[in-house]
């Protein structure tokens, strides 16, 4: 087996390994006590990989499947403002409910 094939095999195996440990992130976003409905979108960045933004559904809930586990950053966009929170992705599903607060024209997000 030449070196090129070996490198390719290692790359395929490591990719398969990271996909096997894919984690699901789900939750609900509220502003104060009221659901944001379909008005929010959120994107996740884990290391160098950024996941495309998804929209919340009518109840303000969302669900995302990430290929990586580890530290990630979630950015919520609501009423044309953005806020970020640090989250963690695991092999098992993790619930991340967020509370948004609009204050002085700024958006703040915190975990519920």
């Amino acid at each position: 087996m030449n070196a090129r094939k070996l490198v390719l095999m290692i790359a395929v195996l490591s990719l398969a390994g990271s996909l096997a440990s894919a984690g699901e992130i789900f939750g609900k976003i509220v502003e104060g006590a009221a659901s944001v409905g379909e008005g929010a979108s959120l994107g996740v960045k884990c290391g160098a990989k950024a996941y495309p933004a998804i929209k919340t559904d009518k109840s303000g809930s969302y669900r995302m499947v990430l290929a990586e586990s580890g530290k990630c950053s979630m950015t919520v966009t609501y009423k044309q403002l953005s806020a970020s929170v640090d989250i963690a992705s695991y092999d098992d599903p993790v619930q991340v409910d967020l509370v948004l607060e609009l204050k002085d024209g700024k958006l703040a997000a915190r975990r519920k």
Partner: protein
Amino acid sequence: MAETPDKPKDRWDKLAVILHPVGGLLTAVAVTAVGVMGSQVLNRRQALDTNARLYSELMSKREESESSLRKDMFVSIIQSFLKPGAGDLDSKVLNLELLAYNFHESLNLKPLFLDIARRLDAPDVKDRQAFRDRLNRVAREVTAKQLFALEGHGTSFRRTVDLEELKSQGRSGVALEKASIAMADRAFDVNLYVLDADLAAQQLKVRLEVKAPESSKDAVDTRVVFYVGWYDFPMIDNTRLANGLRCAVTLSNFSPAMADVTTVCFPGEYASLKDRPYYDEVIQKLQDSARIEDDSAGRRRER
């Protein structure tokens, strides 16, 4: 004495002649109607009472037979753990699964989980990881079920612990973001500090601090240190607060770098079946309900 000549009968006299016997008849009809209606009401009430009695008898018989079935099941399963050397690991894990799924609201199963986890550490155990996965799966399912039930009556919040940051902080630990909780006319702040992490056992040493805000008259001020692992179930393993509420911390996810914990605070009556309320809690509850009744009566009078 001379007889007075017959006075001609007017309209009222004629009416009186007709109504005199009719009055008696109407009285008889009224008495009969009242009697019939009264007996109908009594019959209906009796039928309702009989139905209610029958229903409660059926329910209590069902409860009795279910309790006896559960007792037999419990005795036969628990014996497999108490007899020294009885059964192999597979049957012990299966029995624990049976116990956990059927009795998780009434028993603290942590000692049994830990006992089997210790047995799995023995050097000659085959399929060790498969057994561990089964134990952890059942524990996580039970925790999730209990959390789901408690979140319906209480308030919860989730936090992520960065275990690398915890390691760098040493013994001072990591403070997680505070949560302000308002429940049952009471408000309090819940602070959680993670003091240590045991990566091998997958458990965290945490300090839970529950305090009433400074403006509040409430006397809640609780501080407690404990370990949180997969086998700590919130209905069973929780902290009593001074106001009849409970708070439980559970482990939701664990990896070598991060861990997620869920804290749920809920009214004491939703704790496990084995838990009894303190007398002062019962008295406090009675006083509260009397006060609420007085307040609502006062408001009605004002209207």
